């Protein structure tokens, strides 16, 4: 059953429905795969093991009785550690929450469980979702399945690596400035940040509340749509949750794949994100992707978004400001780490606990946010950033008058090496230049793989953005492009990833896969 782990969630659901495979077999196969490749990849902070097997057996019994709770019942799923799970530790990859088991499930998790999906475990991330590489995880980084010496993106590097390494068919992520889309891009997988308010944030450990959005991580556009349909929709427990009736994203994906044509679709290339200054191979694949869409009938237009260049600055004021406020709840009183040096006041214990419990990037952003919000600086920084937010939104509104969807490379470069940017906060922040505008404006965005960069053989992603509430357009256009690529390549991009789980050679001359030339 080694094929089993290579099936998409849709394929696996088909086999489960047909009865030629059980959820117990599927769950066991993925747990075995996790055991095999985790020493290399380290995508998981917690593996559900027996709890997953028990739930799988329960779903098999329900299915046998004709009571499968949904078409996806029995399909395993990985969950980013930023989401609360009542039966597994939820740490947001921080020492301050080490071992914490929340008293409730996040809404997206509760909905997956209700639909009968099997949580396999919790995936690694940058601490409190602050980062673009998982190097800021307090529990060690996740490694990119394409090249174990490189970052898997962040903050949701664990979820992206888990699906790319076939440890899970689908996963959940969260995206505040690109934390779903950037990891998808550098691991050759698919990730979607829904419209702000499209998926409940209840039980998602908050980073920046006006930017955070939970979304699907997968290997195919259809699988992302299937998960989106399960987790999306109104939730009274999240005051920013939208009451819209949403169309099925999975249906949009199926329609897009079947259509095979982009006739009448206006694709806008954002001039400010068109790849100037980006890695050569990223630009080459992006240009090729535009040609592919044009050949399929799309009308390619260039659009201007003059304020996008200010988006990253606005983001790194708004995010730290909101984060400094959100993270005030780690006070060593109600949950999480308490370090008591003895003969101390609550306030001193709080300060020492936060010093020990938070990592360097979290401290950096809390202090920056405290500064941006402090008396006398508020208007100059936080206020100005909120004005830029208006300007970015206006740019989107104008651009969507000329185009149905907007596109850009998902990231400026392919996966970089560990250590390259970890001590240079500004360089790290620039990884998100392409993805941040969508968060500021609340519009949905998708990243899907469009090939490998010739110079390093690593995946390149295309970002597609749609107007707020038009998430279905991403799935429709994304699925068409994916189907055209698969037809041309004969197989999905991930089939070209190197095999994992082999003995790791001892580092040294002549033992590296390329003969020791590094």
């Amino acid at each position, binding site marked *: 059953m080694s094929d089993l782990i290579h099936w998409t969630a849709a394929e696996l659901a088909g086999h489960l429905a047909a009865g030629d495979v059980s959820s117990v077999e599927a769950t066991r196969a993925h747990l075995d795969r996790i055991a095999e490749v985790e020493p290399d990849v380290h995508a998981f902070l917690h593996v559900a093991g027996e709890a997953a097997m028990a739930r799988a057996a329960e779903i098999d019994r329900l299915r046998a009785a004709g009571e499968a709770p949904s078409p996806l019942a029995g399909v395993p799923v990985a969950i980013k550690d930023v989401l609360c799970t009542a039966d597994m530790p939820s740490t947001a990859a921080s020492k301050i929450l080490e071992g914490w088991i929340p008293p409730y499930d996040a809404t997206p998790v509760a909905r997956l469980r209700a639909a009968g999906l099997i949580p396999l475990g919790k995936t690694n991330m940058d601490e409190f979702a602050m980062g673009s590489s998982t190097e800021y995880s307090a529990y060690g980084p996740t490694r990119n399945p394409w090249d174990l010496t490189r970052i898997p993106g962040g903050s949701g590097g664990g979820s992206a690596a888990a699906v790319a390494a076939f440890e899970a068919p689908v996963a959940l992520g969260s995206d505040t400035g690109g934390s779903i889309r950037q990891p998808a891009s550098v691991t050759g997988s698919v990730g979607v940040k829904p419209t702000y308010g499209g998926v409940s944030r209840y039980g998602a450990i908050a980073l920046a509340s006006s930017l955070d959005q939970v979304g699907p991580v997968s290997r195919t556009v259809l699988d992302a749509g299937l998960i989106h349909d399960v987790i999306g929709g109104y939730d009274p427990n999240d005051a920013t949750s939208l009451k819209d009736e949403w169309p099925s994203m999975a249906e949009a994906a199926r329609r897009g794949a079947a259509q095979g044509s982009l006739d009448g679709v206006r694709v806008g290339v954002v001039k400010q994100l068109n790849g100037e200054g980006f890695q050569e191979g990223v630009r080459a694949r992006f240009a090729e992707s535009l040609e592919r869409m044009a050949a399929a009938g799309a009308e390619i237009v260039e659009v201007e978004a003059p304020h996008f260049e200010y988006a990253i600055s606005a983001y*790194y004021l708004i995010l730290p400001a909101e984060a400094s406020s959100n993270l005030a709840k780690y006070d060593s009183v109600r949950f*999480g780490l308490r370090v008591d040096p003895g003969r101390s006041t609550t306030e001193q214990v709080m300060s020492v606990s936060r010093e020990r419990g938070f990592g360097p990037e979290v401290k950096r952003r809390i202090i920056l946010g405290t500064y941006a919000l402090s008396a006398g600086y508020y208007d100059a920084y936080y206020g100005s950033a909120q*004005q830029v937010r208006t300007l970015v939104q206006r740019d989107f509104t104008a651009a969507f008058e000329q185009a149905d969807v907007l596109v850009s490379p998902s990231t400026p470069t392919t996966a970089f090496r560990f250590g390259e940017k970890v001590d240079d906060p500004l360089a790290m922040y620039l990884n998100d230049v392409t993805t941040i505008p969508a968060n500021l404006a609340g519009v949905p965005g998708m990243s899907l793989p469009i090939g490998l960069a010739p110079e390093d053989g690593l995946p390149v992603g295309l970002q597609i953005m749609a107007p707020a509430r038009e998430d279905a357009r991403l799935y429709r256009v994304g699925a068409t492009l994916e189907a055209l690529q698969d037809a041309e390549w004969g197989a999905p991009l991930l089939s070209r990833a190197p095999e994992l789980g082999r003995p790791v050679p001892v580092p040294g001359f002549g033992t590296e896969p390329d003969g020791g030339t590094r």
Partner: protein
Amino acid sequence: MPDASAEITVADVQHLAGLARIALEPGEIEHLAGELNQIVDSVRKVQEVATPDVPATSHPLPLVNVLRADEVGAVLTQQQVLSGAPDAFDGRFRVPAILGEEQ
């Protein structure tokens, strides 16, 4: 009003760390002061286009205040609420002394 173009000093970071309740080590404070100056120099760019005629946006989609009926809904039990506490006693969170000796 403080000067928004002034350099962030070690004393400033010390003050901010106090506000944020993080007992930063002296080495961390010095390091952070340097990094914050670099970051703030960069993000100051927002001021170039934030002219008085541009309204501020706090949330991506326009929202109105959401109120629910004033009824008891599904809530956590006292035991659940205390389950993650570093220290609890008699159904309450237990904390170290609130006031120091000098207070």
